[in-house]
């Protein structure tokens, strides 16, 4: 059984439907991340957003980056953030105000920023870039399979790769040092916000 070229009744291709669905899920859950009251739910919505973004990477022909997105963001950073949420939330935090006093100007600024970016993107002539991107034919595009990425990462970009490894080591050691529990002091002021 073969699928029809375009979806009946809608008149758009399957790639377009997938793109729209993933984009909708990603933007919707990103909005939930910045607006929900309960911060644990913010973290869970962030995981959904990252997952949809990994799907968009696959659609853009970068399956290796999509795999790294799932491993690094969904597997590591989200878990780290959920742990930090559970370590730092007080009982009365969810019932307090979610937004600061300058939330309305911030919203206006964000909308203006999005509009400026959209107008700039649509007004720019991208004809220097290819007009049609790679479409799925059963294997990743030239240079985007594991071999191509590995050759670029370990031959052309080996110095940034090593610098990033040192950066990660420094970040891990610094994180442990900063978050380490100090010797408890008796004269510590008891403030609860």
């Amino acid at each position, binding site marked *: 059984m073969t699928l029809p070229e375009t979806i009946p009744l809608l008149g758009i291709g399957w790639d377009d439907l997938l793109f729209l669905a993933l984009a909708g899920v990603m933007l919707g859950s990103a909005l939930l991340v910045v607006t929900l009251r309960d911060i644990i739910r913010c973290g869970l919505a962030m995981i959904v957003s990252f997952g949809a973004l990994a799907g968009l990477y696959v659609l853009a022909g970068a399956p290796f980056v999509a795999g*790294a997105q799932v491993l690094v963001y969904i597997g590591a*950073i989200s878990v780290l953030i959920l742990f930090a949420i559970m370590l730092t939330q007080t009982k009365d935090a969810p019932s*307090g105000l979610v*937004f600061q006093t300058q939330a309305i100007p*911030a919203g206006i600024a964000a909308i203006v920023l999005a509009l400026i970016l959209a107008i700039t993107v649509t007004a720019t002539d991208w004809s220097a870039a290819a007009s049609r*991107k790679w479409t799925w034919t059963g294997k990743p595009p*030239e240079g985007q399979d594991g071999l191509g990425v590995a050759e670029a990462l370990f031959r052309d970009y080996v110095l940034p790769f090593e610098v990033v490894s040192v*950066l990660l080591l420094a970040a891990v050691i610094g994180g442990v040092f900063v*978050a380490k529990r100090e010797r408890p002091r008796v004269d*510590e002021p008891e403030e609860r916000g």
Partner: protein
Amino acid sequence: MLAFLSDVSQSLDAYLILAGVLFAIGAFGFLARRNAISMLMSIELMLNAVNLAIIGFGAFKPELNPSASVIALIVMAAAAAEATIGLAIVIAIFRNRKTPLVDEYDAMRQ
């Protein structure tokens, strides 16, 4: 019915606008939320928006193809380092101030 949306996944504009909107959402969250960890999550959203723009350019310009993936991977590693340090700082401040809300961090104002 949705014919104006046909070939939407074949245009670089769609990817870049999507990245721009995601960046704006992250910027709003960073400016408006009171909770320090919410602000860190908004930073992650902005970093992901930049990654999406990089991958979009790589998908439409074949010469950029492996380099775009490598740049995105390095941005991810930098984001992981940033999340580690940021959350450690939030936990350290929480231990002293007993609150995760940034507008109550006013020790330098007094």
